[in-house]
């Protein structure tokens, strides 16, 4: 039937577009000339940050069940796993930066860094931890689903805003154009899901 053909083509386009949007910025950062003058731990720190930013594009799409061909239940399960991956990426990013230059990371964590992007990064880091904690203790908290969801969504908005400002203000390994495009996509996807809220609120099983 032509309608299924169209739907299939559309799904293929969405997935291909998503893969390109995720892979190009990571490859561009991996090809940065700055890497020649960094040691492996510092390179790992930067790449963990880039991967974390890329995961922020997938998270709202999964939370909103917006990826074609994936059921909402499977989408939400993937959202949880990738959320765990995001926490890991943040921990690796900060720990590897700490190994590279302890005083700079201590300044950032204590909000006394000379660079504003550090402040945004640390705010986003705490929001990631809080959102993950909220997700992990969902059953124990016994919040009303709508309340839980509002809190998790608010934290997600802080994560996205903080991370995007952090990334845009940094002169680092990310290539400028691919960085701006990825940030724009992350903001657009998040805004769509936060504003839309069209998906049903489900109680935890």
């Amino acid at each position, binding site marked *: 039937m032509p309608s299924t053909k169209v739907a299939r083509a559309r799904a293929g386009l969405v997935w291909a577009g998503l893969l390109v949007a995720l892979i190009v910025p990571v490859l561009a950062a991996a090809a940065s000339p*700055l890497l020649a003058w960094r040691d492996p731990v*510092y390179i790992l720190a930067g790449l963990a940050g880039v991967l974390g930013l890329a995961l922020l594009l997938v998270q709202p799409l999964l939370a909103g069940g917006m990826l074609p061909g994936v059921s909402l239940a499977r989408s939400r399960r993937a959202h949880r796993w990738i959320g765990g991956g995001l926490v890991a990426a943040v921990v690796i990013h900060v720990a590897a*930066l700490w190994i590279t*230059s302890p*005083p700079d990371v201590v*300044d950032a964590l204590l909000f006394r860094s000379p*660079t504003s992007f550090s402040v945004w990064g640390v705010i986003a880091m705490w929001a990631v931890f809080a959102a993950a904690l909220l997700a992990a203790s969902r059953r124990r908290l016994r919040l009303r689903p709508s309340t839980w969801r509002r809190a998790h969504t608010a934290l997600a908005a802080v994560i996205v805003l903080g991370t995007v400002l952090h990334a845009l203000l940094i*002169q680092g390994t990310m290539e400028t154009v691919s960085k701006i495009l990825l940030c724009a996509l992350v903001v657009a996807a998040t805004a769509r899901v936060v504003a839309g809220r069209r998906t049903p609120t489900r109680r935890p099983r």
Partner: protein
Amino acid sequence: MTTPLTTRRTLLRLAGAAAATGMSGLLVPAHAQGVAPTPSMRGGANNYRPGAPVVARIGGGGFWMTGTVRRAGDGAPLAGQRIQIWAHTTEGQERDPQSHGATLTDAEGVFRLEMPQIIPAFGQAHGHLAYDSGEFQTVFLRPVMARASDTSLNADFVLQPA
């Protein structure tokens, strides 16, 4: 007859010109007491290694760190002052010993030290400088390059007695 117009714009221009003249040093004798000491910058002391040796050049060179050292109050140039310099360069990270070196100011209180190209690290292309010889109060500076492609960076010290 034309009336001279004093618009907000001309006022701003005059104020700007006056400020520029004052800061350029032309009016220094008139403002002899007004040269304020340079405060340390946030993060300036990060990855500091005390006692960096005085060197003719850090590594292979190609990049210039320049500046002046003056005395607070009268603004007199300070000769023979030791300034320590370090940065993340093409030849090492900030913590690496080979990234550190020191130089002395000349009779005019000017210092110039050649070092490897500074590259962006921790999100900004920046350098570190320290005055830490004891005669005057310690100052740590962390100037930021306007562009990562710049091949020089300047930082001025105004020191007050310890």
